[in-house]
């Protein structure tokens, strides 16, 4: 009955440690469980120590890292749960099913807190769109997210897409979910009460989700590997029923805890829940509703089949809860009871097959990793590229760069309206804005990272990612309140990769502390590298920022609104073109990566927030990727209006060139528009906070005009800029 020989990834030291703690030789099932729980994916053995430096507390933090998702208080008894997760490896081999099940996984993390999922965000990275493989990944990942998200009735409201050759083989697929709940109805996934009944609900358990270890182990069965898919196929229809049935079951008041079955399957859920509650659990594996005959205990404990949840229910009250499951026609099985033994005891046909302390599984030994600084990533070239002759041409060129161009081919495939909350929709602003129905308030959310900056300088790049995400929500009228993050790196056993990771977390910590923001959760994905070439992805920690908009009247979009209004640039421009879209475009390798300075960010953010609060601001936009020139163009295109700016008024360091002023990606900047009368008021708000600010031009009818000291440098029609920007992705990717 047992597997012939379990092939584990544990080191000899880890196996010895497991034996010592167990006080005997683990049997093969137990060894499989330890193997999964002590894997990098479940144990965070390489990252936990490093992550400890992140700030985690704050007055709004209700649940910090350590549970399925972080939870933040937004007042009036309302809470927001949010979490992000990567699904990189499955998406790289099966982009459609891989990304779809990524969406499925993150939704469950929100449900665990008894919050209703109200939004999804996706952050995607692929190789150069010239590559057919990258296009195949792109098209199928987007379709996978669309098909799953749309069918579960959760709007996908924001995201980002980057193209860079380092993601050619290992694409990055990070999906975040945002949930809304009530503070007094939250549940934590922990087994606190011995005697509670344990119920497994949702999709059938099958062999389809048994990965890694079992794949590697030569389990002898008549079905050949050819018939076994390497990734799972999700069923969003079942997921929708699981969502509704879970939320309705919670309303009975008889459910004490819920947890999703994700990586590590039942083993992970049972051990984490009991370990957190200091309890144990007894289960009978034969009770599990299965999809395939003859599943072994090993398979039942480790299957990662999709769309499953574990419930603990007050004894004698199960009928009330099970009735809800029956109404929604979701299968379930009563599999056991919470105990006070501190152990997981699993029976198969009445015979004990596993008896192991929960904490042995959830408190794995940490791995020791070495870090080595990568000294020179780019040759710091002293020279500069020649100044372009035709700036209008550069404008069209940069707007049609796949990293800048309009992503409507992506977000049009997502239902971003379902739920009746989405006030600012994809494309309207730097962040999505969702109202809280029945209240005069809203939240803003965005996910962000600039992987090229993070590669060139992991510390500065990641600090800037936090700052940019914060600016993004601020520009919509929100106050940034909390963050969750998703780390995507190569092999942490390589000292250079580990160094990148440590630098990233240091940079994030620096900016979070500077902005007074807590990190309430996250996810780490390592080993994103090509086994053949050994090439790792650019280090990329995506930052999900949550902002709170205190009144709906504060909601601000980026579209230019009215001819004649003033255009103000908040923040100073530095010659920081290292890793800029402009240099990438002209193929120039060099320059300084933008530096993110927390005090400057804070001052700019506070200034804009106050200007919005006072009702001065008619449009606002963060100024980053592509620089001033691109941000202005986006505002013009969105508003269907033109503008005229004079670069002489842009505050910058001495002797900057025109292309540097236009395309530098310096941090801590916003572009805002305002009426003539309020112009001085905004400038004086900025002055008071020490933010360099100036009026750089005005909104006009239809032409995008850039001058220097009154002399026109170049001019394009906004309509033509729109075409370059909108048509680029369909042209590159194919309709």
């Amino acid at each position: 009955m047992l597997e012939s020989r379990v092939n584990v990834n544990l080191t000899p030291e880890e196996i010895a440690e497991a034996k010592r703690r167990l006080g005997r030789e683990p049997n093969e099932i137990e060894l499989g469980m330890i193997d999964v729980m002590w894997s990098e994916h479940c144990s965070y053995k390489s990252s936990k120590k490093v992550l400890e430096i992140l700030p985690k507390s704050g007055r709004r933090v209700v649940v910090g890292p350590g549970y399925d998702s972080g939870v933040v208080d937004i007042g009036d008894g309302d809470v927001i749960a949010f979490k992000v997760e990567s699904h990189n490896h499955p998406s790289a081999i099966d982009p459609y099913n891989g990304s779809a099940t990524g969406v499925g996984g993150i939704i469950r993390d929100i449900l665990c807190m008894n919050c209703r999922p109200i939004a999804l965000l996706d952050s995607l990275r692929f190789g150069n769109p010239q590559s057919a493989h990258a296009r195949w990944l792109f098209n199928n990942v987007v379709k996978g997210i669309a098909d799953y998200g749309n069918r579960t009735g959760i709007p996908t409201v924001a995201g980002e897409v980057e193209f860079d050759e380092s993601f050619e083989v290992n694409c990055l697929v990070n999906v975040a979910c945002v949930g809304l709940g009530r503070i007094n109805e939250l549940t934590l996934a922990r087994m606190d009460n011995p005697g509670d009944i344990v119920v497994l609900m949702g999709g059938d358990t099958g062999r389809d989700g048994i990965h890694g270890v079992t794949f590697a182990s030569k389990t002898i069965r008549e079905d050949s590997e050819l018939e076994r898919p390497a990734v799972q196929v999700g069923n969003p229809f079942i997921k929708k029923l699981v969502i509704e049935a879970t939320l309705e079951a919670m309303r009975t008041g008889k459910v004490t805890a819920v947890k999703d079955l994700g990586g590590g399957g039942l083993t992970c859920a049972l051990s984490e829940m009991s370990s957190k509650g200091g309890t144990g659990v007894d289960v009978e594996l034969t009770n599990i509703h299965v999809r395939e005959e003859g599943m072994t205990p090993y398979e039942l404990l480790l299957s990662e089949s999709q769309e499953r949840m574990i419930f603990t229910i007050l004894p004698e009250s199960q009928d009330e809860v099970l009735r809800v499951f029956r109404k929604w026609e979701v299968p379930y099985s009563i599999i056991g009871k919470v105990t006070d033994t501190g152990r997981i005891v699993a029976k198969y046909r009445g015979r004990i097959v596993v008896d192991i302390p929960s904490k042995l599984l959830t408190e794995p030994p940490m791995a020791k990793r070495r870090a080595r600084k990568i000294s020179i990533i780019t040759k710091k070239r002293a020279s500069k590229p020649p100044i372009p002759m035709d700036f209008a041409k550069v404008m069209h060129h940069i707007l049609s760069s796949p990293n800048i161009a309009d992503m409507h081919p992506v977000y049009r495939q997502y239902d971003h309206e379902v739920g009746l909350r989405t006030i600012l929709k994809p494309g309207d602003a730097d962040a999505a804005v969702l109202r809280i129905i029945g209240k005069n308030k809203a939240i803003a959310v965005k996910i962000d990272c600039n992987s090229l900056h993070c590669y060139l300088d992991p510390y500065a790049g990641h600090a800037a990612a936090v700052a940019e995400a914060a600016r993004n929500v601020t520009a919509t009228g929100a106050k940034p309140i909390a963050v969750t993050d998703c780390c995507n790196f190569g092999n942490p056993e390589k000292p250079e990769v580990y160094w990148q990771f440590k630098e990233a977390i240091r940079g994030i910590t620096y900016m979070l502390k500077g902005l007074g923001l807590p990190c309430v959760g996250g996810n780490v994905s390592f080993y994103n590298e090509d086994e053949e070439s050994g090439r790792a992805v650019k280090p990329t920690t995506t930052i999900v920022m949550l902002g709170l908009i205190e009144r709906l009247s504060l909601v601000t979009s980026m579209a230019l609104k009215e001819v004649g209004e003033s255009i103000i640039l908040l923040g100073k421009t530095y010659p920081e073109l290292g890793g800029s879209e402009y240099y990438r475009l002209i193929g120039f390798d060099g320059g300084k990566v933008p530096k993110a300075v927390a005090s400057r960010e804070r001052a700019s953010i506070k200034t804009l927030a106050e200007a919005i609060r006072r009702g001065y601001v008619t449009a606002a936009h963060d100024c980053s990727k592509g620089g001033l020139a691109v941000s202005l163009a986006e505002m013009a295109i969105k508003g269907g209006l033109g503008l005229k700016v004079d670069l002489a008024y842009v505050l910058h360091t001495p002797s900057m060139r025109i292309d540097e002023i236009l395309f530098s990606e310096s941090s801590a900047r916003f572009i805002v528009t305002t009426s003539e009368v309020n112009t001085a008021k905004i400038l004086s708000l900025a002055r008071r906070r020490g933010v360099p600010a100036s009026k750089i031009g005005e909104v006009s009818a239809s032409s995008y005009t850039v001058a220097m000291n009154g002399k026109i440098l170049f001019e394009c029609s906004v309509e033509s800029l729109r075409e370059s920007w909108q048509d680029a992705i369909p042209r590159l990717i194919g309709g």
Partner: protein
Amino acid sequence: MIIENKKLARDPEGETIAKELIERRGISTIKSVRSGKYLRFLVEAGKEEEALRLVEKIANELRIFNPVVHICNIRIMGESR
């Protein structure tokens, strides 16, 4: 060309049809339903073998199916005219 999920992969569509449409009607003689995609190519070729090889090539190059999850079956249906 018929593209199906691998035998041991789930097939949410087939499962749902079987359960919600067929079982619910009390039809018990249908034991299972699997769903797939069907593509019919009209190919100009001298020999059947040639047509088959061309379509196979296209299926792979265009990635009409993904060998990680799908099985793909290509057959000649006949000649036109």
